[in-house]
């Protein structure tokens, strides 16, 4: 299927007193309608930055320094602010991590929903209220009509996140960027929110980009997954393949580091060291100083994504010339 969103060799740089730091390097992926793409990685890998760049909310001094972002056949990274603002919300919805800070504590849920709906859609007040009620019902909030008059503090964490999802869906977007939508929630509530996101994606044929650090959420919600390390995608492929037979040594380490819920407990697989800071990304493959399988080429030359089983991985081990 034709992807709805195409990100092509996206680079993001931060200009600082000590020169410019490259936070994202040549990130490329596409998302088709009805597909959930997971972006996973550890703090500082550039996951959230990728989402912010797509919706045009990079904070200065961050800026897009290369590549293209194409939404529905139209290039959006070069759009003027006003046009981008219309696209955001109307076409592209976003959900952030903390449901408390995403809502205005001084306005009722109804006021916030109606305002958002009327900003994007030509509806009357009463039509907007009716739409708000149906959105809340769709996101699983019971007694929706009564709850419109309540304030955010009267909702629990999981319920608030449902309201945030309803807000993101207010104008019927075709692309949803969800940045750690379940991180602030308890496991029992997390399951509800993930099930809701999946169902909405299916029912509405929405393309979803789900940013998270939690492999469990990825395994459950996504069709494909991209693993990021030090500002690059190091592996991208169908979720089942990346989880069961990861190809990149970093992805292998990441999977092995998760305590398992089945089988005997063993010592956890450990990747020594930590992800390099932006200014200190080593030459060659950024992962080579921590990689148990690094060879000469990894130290000098940066690998591009190349076929590795059913996925694609940026690792010289999958090159024809790799040592066996």
């Amino acid at each position, binding site marked *: 299927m034709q992807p709805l969103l195409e990100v092509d060799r996206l680079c993001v740089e931060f200009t600082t007193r000590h020169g410019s730091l490259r936070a994202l390097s040549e990130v490329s992926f596409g998302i088709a309608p009805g597909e959930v793409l997971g972006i996973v990685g*550890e*703090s500082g890998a550039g996951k959230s930055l990728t989402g912010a760049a797509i919706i045009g909310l990079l904070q200065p001094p961050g800026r897009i320094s290369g590549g293209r972002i194409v939404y529905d056949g139209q290039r959006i990274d070069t759009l003027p602010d006003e046009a981008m603002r219309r696209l955001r919300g109307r076409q592209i919805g976003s959900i952030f991590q903390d449901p408390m800070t995403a809502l205005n504590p001084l306005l009722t849920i109804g006021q916030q929903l109606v305002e958002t709906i009327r900003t994007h859609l030509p509806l009357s007040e009463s039509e907007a209220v009716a739409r708000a009620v149906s959105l809340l019902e769709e996101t699983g909030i019971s007694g929706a009509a009564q709850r419109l008059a309540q304030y955010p503090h009267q909702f*629990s*964490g*999981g*319920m608030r996140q449902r309201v945030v999802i309803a807000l993101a869906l207010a104008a019927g977007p075709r692309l949803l960027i969800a940045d750690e939508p379940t991180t602030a929630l*308890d*496991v*029992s*509530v*997390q*399951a*509800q929110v*993930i*099930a809701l996101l999946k169902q909405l994606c299916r029912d509405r044929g929405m393309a979803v980009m789900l940013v998270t*650090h*939690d*492999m*469990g*959420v990825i*395994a*459950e919600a996504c069709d494909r997954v991209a693993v990021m390390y030090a500002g690059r995608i190091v592996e991208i492929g169908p*979720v*089942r393949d990346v*989880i*069961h037979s990861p190809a990149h040594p970093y992805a292998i*380490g*990441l999977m*092995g*580091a*998760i*305590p*398992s*819920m*089945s089988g005997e*407990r063993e*010592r*956890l*697989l*450990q*990747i*020594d060291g*930590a992800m390099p800071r932006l200014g200190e990304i080593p030459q060659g493959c950024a992962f080579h100083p921590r990689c148990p399988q690094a060879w000469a080429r990894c130290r000098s030359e940066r690998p591009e994504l190349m076929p590795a089983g059913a996925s694609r991985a940026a690792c010289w081990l999958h090159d024809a010339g790799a040592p066996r």
Partner: protein
Amino acid sequence: MTPLMASPLVEVRELSKTFDVSAPWLARVIERRAPQFVHAVDGVSFAIQRGQTLGLVGESGCGKSTVARLLVGLQTPTSGEVRLDGIDMTQAFASGQAGTLRRRLQMIFQDPYASLNPRWTVADIVAEPLVEHGLLSGRAALRERVAELLAAVGLSASDAAKLPHQFSGGQRQRISIARALASNPEFLVCDEPTSALDVSVQAQVLNLMQEIQQRHGLTYLFISHNLAVVRHVADQVGVMVLGRIVELADRRTLFSRPAHPYTRMLLDSIPDVAMSGRVRQPVQGDLPNPLQPPIGCSFHPRCPHANERCRVERPALQAIGGVQVACHAAEEGRLP
């Protein structure tokens, strides 16, 4: 398990902590409101054998962190007792005789950014318990011991002169562990020690904590909301709901045959990383409000097996089928 079933190192009996969250007196009088209390910890009992780990799991607001703070004396219990090696710690803390006791237990906190003084060097931080308890004196001796402790947690002696901001989250948690080990404690209370860390760093810290436990024969109380982590570290597991333990069992039994409906719900709600095709059951309903806890069993509003008795009578923790469970349905054999 020790072959002799020696007396446990840590014994907690009917521990309770009530917080007064009433409105200010004048507001209460004007609006005729009754004083309001939160029973953060409500009659919790458990014991930990020497060298073992008790994992405590539960969702936010269930009181697991309050248990940790009561155990190390950061909070005073409303009632109940905590014994370390047979000595009543609550009394010792109250009478100011706790010096040598405090040395025997230490705590590791969740947030490695907030639990280290940003203006102190790593050497000062790690040496503080040594100086505070008068265990060592003399700069050379202190320096040597700090270097030894840093080496034990995988940092280098040259890190001693640095400040906390120069370290990543995982390294900071290592510094916290080095500080906790300084006074040669027997018992470590770990409150979500890896929750703020990325998975690969979490793996490093969990491996380190297990090595240290084996090397020093330490006893852990390990608090976490992450069941997979608890399964990885604990020998015994306690599950908490609204200030009470609803199930207490050894790790193997709890994870293979969970008895309490809440434990089953928690296990069912973990995302399936292995993608084994297990269908995850999203739980209906929300966490109850601790200010207005449900009458009867605190889990009954979300429990699929609740009946009239569960709505009025609060179940007590009792031995059923080799584990401790607080559930009427389990007691009556109503659970599938």
